[in-house]
């Protein structure tokens, strides 16, 4: 039985054992912007994003050698694309540093401290010296052509269920530009995001199912958010997911914006790799080899390809070239499914879209794609004397791009004999991916000669360690042990008011339940009614819990007080305004004496005291601590007994 394409199942119909049989391994690279006032290597403010811009500059990128004297494959690929890169400069958040017209300033110490804090929480070994490296990015996303980045910690572990997940490394780096447009040989970027401080946490490939990958990503994101020192919101956190199966290769899916999308992407990448490995077997069966594989190219006239497709009409209207490629033995390979909607032909199309900049789809034609009829292909087949097993592909566009495309298609077909090429892939909405670029290797690293290494002495480490809260999962455990219900403990553990809670309980004497209810449930409710509770300083909330624990007001008054504080009043002012002034002894004493006189002596003095207090407190509620009243009552009762 010859090897034929296998069905690609949907994620929900796939049992975890299937991934085990595939040998699925997955790791994460979690990017998280840090909440600093300024950027990493200059004094520009880190934000906000802009919809417009003030000036434009143009750059081209050329690959350069690594420190070890090698060129990086990605860099060479980007060089082929001959891109013009335009930067839209936002003057308020961009200076000549981001334009690469000024060398870097000293690295932002605040960002280094936050990175170290998170590196400690991840259990990594902190380096003795931070060495800034240049990581080449020839796609233009950074005007220098490289990202300044430095390893902060290595080889950590985080708990996951009953096992642990290895943390390969955590680095501190500058963020890249936001892409505005990528069309043909032109890329446009906006510089407002550029050089914001970012940490990248890389895990070992320890996850075995798509669901685990999402779980671990959530844990890492929560850990960082739990410091209260990272940015939140759209684009502040982004993930790259590394996937491989047995016999496959590490493929990196770039820039996943939301965690819920991870499982689908991992699932379909695993099955794409399985399909590519099936193709290897099929080609072997057919007796074909990469070494002898050659495509034949024949020129076509524009008249040979008169199809009513915008991309073809575009090529016909310009000085477009048309070429027919004959791929020996690939006729059954091109329509081979590699995903629910994608085939091997899409792999070819993806490569020429990126490398030859033929980005108007369809950017190639092949038999069975539904764009041309049998007669069209029959004629080409006759004219080219192609064998019955050979695939025909038509490429079109500007002459240099067509030549580039022909070369890329041949190269990608050759890779099909080996299996899964090392690449980075772009996430698509349906869980599939498409080729983005060749996977970069260590060759793209180069030491940054503009800045000396930064020593991280033990004293700095100890200062940060002392001020660092326990990891979020330990906090959650502590909260649950205190009796805080789960729906409040989970958000409270990563809340920036976590330390306020701790002080309220440990220093002010508030009960854990009251503390959690106010800081989580009540804050949520007040936020919903548009009340700016998040603007209230921590110190004022501390003061409020102090007054509450001192009996100055009842818990029902918290909402009213917080509303007043959100409007700018201090805790003291709010209590004085709403609860009233503290009751002086001269007011309390007569009340107690009256109540004492009216009450009948009981055999149990404690019971009598409770009764008396119950009588006077409604008039005093919130204006004097109950304990104080009780003390006064004891004094008066003593006098009376004498």
């Amino acid at each position, binding site marked *: 039985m010859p090897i034929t394409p296998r069905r690609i199942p949907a994620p929900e119909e796939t049992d975890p054992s299937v991934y085990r049989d595939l040998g699925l391994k997955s790791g994460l690279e979690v990017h998280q912007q840090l909440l600093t006032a300024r950027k990493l290597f200059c004094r520009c403010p880190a934000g906000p994003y802009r919809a417009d811009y003030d000036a434009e500059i143009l750059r*081209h990128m050329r690959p350069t050698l690594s420190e070890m004297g090698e060129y990086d494959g990605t860099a060479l690929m980007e060089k082929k694309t001959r891109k013009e890169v335009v930067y839209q400069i936002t003057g308020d958040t961009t200076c000549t540093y981001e334009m690469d017209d000024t060398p870097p300033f000293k690295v932002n110490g605040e960002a280094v401290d936050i990175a170290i804090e998170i590196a400690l929480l991840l259990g990594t070994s902190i380096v003795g*010296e931070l060495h800034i490296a240049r990581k080449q990015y020839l796609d233009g996303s950074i005007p220098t052509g490289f990202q300044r980045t430095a390893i902060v910690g290595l080889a950590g572990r985080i708990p996951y269920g009953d096992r642990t997940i290895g943390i390969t490394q955590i680095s501190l780096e500058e963020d890249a530009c936001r892409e505005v447009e990528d069309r043909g040989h032109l890329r446009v970027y906006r510089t407002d995001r550029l050089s914001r401080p970012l940490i990248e946490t890389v895990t070992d490939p320890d996850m075995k199912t798509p669901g685990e990958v999402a779980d671990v990503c959530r844990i890492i994101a929560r850990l960082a958010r739990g410091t209260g020192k990272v940015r939140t919101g759209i684009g502040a956190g982004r993930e790259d997911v590394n996937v491989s199966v047995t016999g496959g290769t590490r493929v990196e899916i770039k820039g996943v914006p939301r965690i819920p999308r991870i499982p689908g992407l991992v699932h379909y990448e695993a099955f794409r790799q399985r399909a590519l490995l099936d193709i290897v077997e099929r080609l072997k069966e057919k007796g074909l080899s990469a070494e002898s594989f050659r495509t034949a190219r024949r020129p076509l006239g524009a008249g040979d390809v008169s199809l009513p497709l915008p991309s073809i009409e575009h090529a016909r209207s310009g000085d477009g070239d048309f070429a027919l490629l004959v791929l020996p033995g690939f006729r059954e390979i091109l329509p081979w499914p590699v995903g629910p909607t994608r085939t091997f032909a899409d792999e070819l199309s993806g490569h020429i879209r990126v490398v030859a900049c033929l980005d108007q789809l369809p950017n190639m034609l092949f038999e069975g794609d539904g764009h041309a009829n049998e007669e069209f292909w029959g004629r080409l087949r006759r004219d080219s004397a192609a064998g019955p097993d050979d695939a025909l592909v038509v490429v079109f566009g500007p002459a240099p791009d067509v030549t580039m495309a022909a070369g890329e298609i041949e190269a990608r077909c050759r890779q099909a004999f080996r299996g899964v090429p090392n690449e980075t892939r772009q996430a698509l909405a349906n869980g599939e991916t498409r080729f983005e670029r060749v996977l970069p290797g260590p060759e793209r690293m180069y030491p940054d000669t503009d800045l000396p290494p930064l020593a991280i002495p033990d004293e700095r480490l100890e200062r940060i360690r002392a001020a660092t809260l326990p990891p979020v999962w330990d906090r959650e455990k502590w909260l649950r042990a205190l009796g805080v219900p789960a729906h409040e403990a989970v958000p409270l553990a990563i809340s920036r008011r976590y330390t306020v809670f701790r002080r309220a309980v440990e220093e002010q004497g508030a009960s854990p339940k009251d503390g959690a209810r106010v800081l989580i449930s009540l804050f949520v409710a007040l936020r919903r009614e548009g009340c700016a509770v998040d603007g209230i300083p921590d110190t004022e909330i501390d003061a409020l819990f102090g007054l509450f624990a001192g009996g100055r007001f009842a818990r029902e008054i918290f909402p009213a007080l917080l509303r007043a504080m959100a409007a700018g009043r201090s805790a003291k002012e709010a209590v004085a305004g709403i609860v009233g002034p503290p009751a002086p002894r001269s007011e309390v004493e007569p009340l107690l004496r009256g109540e004492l006189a009216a009450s009948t002596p009981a055999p149990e003095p404690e019971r009598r005291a409770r009764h008396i207090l119950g009588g006077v407190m409604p008039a005093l509620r919130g204006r004097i601590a109950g304990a104080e009243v009780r003390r006064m009552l004891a004094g008066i009762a003593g006098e009376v007994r004498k």
Partner: protein
Amino acid sequence: MIAPDALKGYRGAARDVLTRFSVRVWSDVEMDTTRGKFTGIILPRSETADDRHIVLKLRTGYNIGVAVSTVKEILETGYREAHYKIPEREFPYDPAKPRVKLLGTGGTIASRLDYRTGAVIPAFSPGELYGSVPELADIGNLETEKLYGVFSENMGPEQWIGTARAIGREIEKGVDGIVIGHGTDTMHHTAAVLSFMVQNTPVPIVMVGSQRSSDRPSSDAAMNLICSTKVAAESDIAEVMVCMFGPTSDQYCLLHQGTRVRKMHSSYRSTFRTIGDVPIGQVSPDSIRTIRKDYRRRRKDRNVTIQAVFEPKVAIVQYYPNMQPDIIEALIDNGYKGIVIAGTGLGHVNKPLYPALRRAHDKGIALFMTVQTLWGYAQMYVYDTGRDLMDLGIVPAENMLPEVAYVKLGWTLAQTTDLAEVERIMLTSYAREITEREPHDGYLIFQAGAPWLQEHFRKFWK
């Protein structure tokens, strides 16, 4: 026993630790430290860095430093020495193409990593250049010669004279154009002095450098090199010029007259500006467009005059308020033969300097006045101070830039000590160092803010 060179850059405590564990630079190691375990290759350390850390290259290509005080154990598992080398490819020869000579003096136009300092050092050969900028072969047949390998601050009379002589030799050999690779900091000094030392050149002489070293993907080196080689090979401009980025964008280079150009920003790509004039032309990899038309034209003959001489006892004095006369006295007492003053405004200094200046003049020291405003002429009749200074024997040097007047005075004083002759030579314009008139568009420093200008920034690459 470890060879001393095997611990490149390591001193003191770091060196002791490496020796103790019998490991060396390029050792592949596993390190156990109080902060955890680290695995990688030991890299050389910059000599200017401290002696308390060891540099490791990790498998991922990242480098880290490990504090020696935390090291418990180092185990060598292998050895892998790196050779940072630009791939060399033999420069192709095409008999139909012009012959261009590239003389190297240093700078980052072609550079590689220097482990001694951790900075970049120049690398340079036709093969290396062709390996990194293959476009050069489309322009001409390139020959290279490394004259020096120095940063531009280390260029001086010896190198200027050597370079001028090399230019003379190459012109006689029949090259069609000369490109000089140079660090950017003092490129304008060298451009000016070569304008005087090499007279009547029949071919273009183009100085070039880079503001971003060529080991960066966004370097300006490649385009500067392509444009300058194109000018040397194809243009009809027989002048000493500087060819560097016009705007900061990768669009075109400007060709500046060697005597009217100045580095005006410490780091911008578009740092070189023509002062008090318009540039000679604009060059892109596809075209050369001249802006001024009064340049000297390329000739077939080889009649060049090389006058490579320089009197080193010449100084340039930037005047500042409260300057004390002892500065001038020190120059007199140390045997200086010429002083160029960069005065304020139209060419002024304060009264307390007068006696010292009179003494300098009496001692036969040549005194010339230039303006620290850079743009404009020394015009010493306008105010009394100027007239006083002229009475003291100070000669206004028209609109010669201070650095240009400085190198010209050194060149002149090496030819004659007769002050009248010195003055005649100084005030004769040989290479446009003095212009008779300043064009209306020779002083264009735009200031941001005007709406029309902001609109321009938004619409056009700059």
